C-alpha cells in the first residue's frame, strides 16, 4: 500500500493547495484569501458599541481616515521618519566602516567588539534615561536611540561578512600584485555585500522599534506623542490604526531592502 502511495506521487490530485501555489496567480489568490480571512476574523472579534473595547476592522478604518483627513497622521509620520532616516544614515555611515575595520584590524576588534556585544546583550531601552540625561528631549536624543538599536547588527554582520571572504580570492588578487586597498575595494567588499545586506535588514527592523520606543519614552514628537495623546483620551481605534500604519511601514521598508539585496547579490543565488 505504501508503495502504491509512493508511485502515486507521479499523478498527483488534479486539485490541491500545493498545486495552487505553484503558479504566480495562485500564490496571489492564496495571499488575498488569507488577508480577507484575517480582516474577517478581526471584524468579528472586535466591538463597535463600546469605545474602550477592541475595535472592529471597520471602526479602525474609519479612525484611520479621521487621522488622515485632517493631516494629523501625515505630519506625525513626517516628523517620525525624519528621526528614522537620520538614524539609518548614521547607522550605515558609521556601522559599515567600523565593521570593515574591526574585521581587518585586530587591535580595533579588541577595542570595539566588547561594546557591541554589550549593546546586543542588554535591552537598549535601559539606556534611554542616560541618553535623555545627556541630550535632553531633543531630535539628537531620538536619533541616538534609533542608532543604538540598529548599529550593533550592522557592525557585527559586516565584520563577519568581511572575515568570511574566501582567502583564495584575496590570494589571487595578491598574486596579480593588487594592493591592500585594491583588494578591499575590488574583492573583499563585493564579496561581503550579501552578508552586509543581511545585517542591514535586521538593523532596519530594530531601528523601526527604536524609533517608536524613542518617541514613546522621550516624549515630544511624531507618532509616539500622537499615540501617547490618543491613549490618554482612551481613543483605542486611532491608536490601533497607527499601530497598523507602523506595521505597514515596516513591511514596506523590508520590501525595499529585499529588492536592493536581490539587485546587488544576484550572483550569490545559484
Amino acid at each position: 500500500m505504501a508503495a502504491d502511495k509512493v508511485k502515486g506521487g507521479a499523478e498527483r490530485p488534479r486539485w490541491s493547495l500545493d498545486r495552487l501555489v505553484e503558479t504566480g496567480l495562485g500564490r496571489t489568490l492564496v495571499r488575498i484569501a488569507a488577508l480577507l480571512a484575517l480582516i474577517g476574523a478581526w471584524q468579528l472579534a472586535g466591538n463597535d458599541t463600546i469605545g474602550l473595547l477592541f475595535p472592529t476592522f471597520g471602526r479602525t478604518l474609519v479612525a484611520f481616515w479621521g487621522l488622515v483627513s485632517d493631516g494629523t497622521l501625515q505630519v506625525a509620520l513626517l516628523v517620525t521618519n525624519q528621526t528614522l532616516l537620520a538614524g539609518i544614515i548614521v547607522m550605515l555611515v558609521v556601522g559599515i566602516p567600523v565593521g570593515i575595520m574591526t574585521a581587518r584590524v585586530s587591535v580595533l576588534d579588541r577595542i570595539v567588539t566588547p561594546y557591541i556585544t554589550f549593546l546586543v546583550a542588554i535591552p537598549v531601552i535601559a539606556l534611554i534615561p542616560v541618553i535623555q540625561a545627556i541630550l535632553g528631549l531633543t531630535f539628537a536624543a531620538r536619533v541616538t536611540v534609533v542608532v543604538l538599536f540598529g548599529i550593533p547588527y550592522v557592525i557585527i554582520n559586516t565584520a563577519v561578512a568581511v572575515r568570511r571572504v574566501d582567502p583564495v580570492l584575496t590570494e589571487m588578487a595578491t598574486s596579480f600584485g593588487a594592493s591592500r586597498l585594491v583588494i578591499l575595494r575590488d574583492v573583499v567588499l563585493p564579496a561581503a555585500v550579501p552578508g552586509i545586506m543581511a545585517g542591514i535588514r535586521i538593523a532596519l527592523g530594530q531601528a523601526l522599534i527604536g524609533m517608536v520606543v524613542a518617541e514613546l519614552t522621550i516624549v515630544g514628537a511624531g507618532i509616539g506623542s500622537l499615540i501617547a495623546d490618543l491613549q490618554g483620551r482612551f481613543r483605542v481605534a486611532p491608536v490601533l490604526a497607527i499601530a497598523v500604519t507602523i506595521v505597514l511601514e515596516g513591511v514596506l521598508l523590508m520590501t525595499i531592502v529585499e529588492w536592493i539585496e536581490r539587485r546587488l547579490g544576484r550572483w550569490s543565488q545559484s
Partner: protein
Amino acid sequence: MTETQAPAISISNLTKFYGSPKGRRMKALENVTLTVGRGEFVSIIGPSGCGKTTMLKMVGGILGWDEGSIEVLGKPVTGPGPERATVFQSFALLPWMTVIDNVSFGLKVRGMAKPERYAVARKLLASVGLADFETSYPRQLSGGMQQRVGLARALAVSPQLLLMDEPFSAIDAQTRLILQTDLLDIWSKTDLSVLFITHAMDEAVFLSDKVVIMGARPGHVTDIIDVDLPRPRTEETRRDPRFVELTGFVWDRLRGMIQQDERAA
C-alpha cells in the same frame, strides 16, 4: 650567467618552518633544490603534506621562507611579479563578475583601461574556446569551463612563467584529459615556462618535460625524472608503452612513500 640565460625558476636549499601554537617549529620543507628551464614544463607530484603547494606559493611571492633562495628569471623573489601568473585549484573566480571581467582582472589591477583589457581578454577567451561566454557569470559554467577562465585570466597578463596549483583536480576525469591536451596546445604556441602541481601520475607524465617527486615530513625532493616522450603529445601518447612505464615508475615511488607513511601513523 647573464640574465637572459638564467633559468625560469631556480630554487636552492629552500627550507621553511611552520610555527606551531606551543612555539615548537615544524619543518615544512627541507633543502629543496630544483630548476625549471626556460620554456620547460615541470610537474611536482607528492603525497599530501609534502609542501608542494607551499612551495608554489613561495615561487609566486605570496609566502615567505626561512632558508635558501628562489630566483625567477635570474632575479631573487621578493613578492608577486608581473612575469608570473597563477592558476588556482578552486579556480578563484570572482562570482559577481562576468567572464570577461574575470579574465581582465589582472590587467585591471595593473591599471590597463577597459577597452584595451577587454580586447586582450577577448583574444584569450577565444584561445581557450570560450568566445561565446564573455557575459556569462562563473556559476553558469561547468568546472572545466571555469578553469578555462582561470587559465585565460593568468595568460592575459602575458606572463613568462605559469604557476599551476593542482588546476584540474576539481574537474571530472574525462574533462580533465581534454583540458590537458588543450593546455599543451596553448603552451606549445608560447615560450611559457610552467610549474605544475598535481597528485595525478598520468597527468604529470603526460604534460611534463620533467617530473619532480617529493616526499613528506619534512617536504623534500626524492626523484627528478626526465620524461623523454616525443612532442606534440596526443591521445596516442597515453597508449605509448614508455608513457605506461614512466607512470608506473612514478606510482612505485609514491606508493612506497605512502605505505611507509601509513605504517608509521
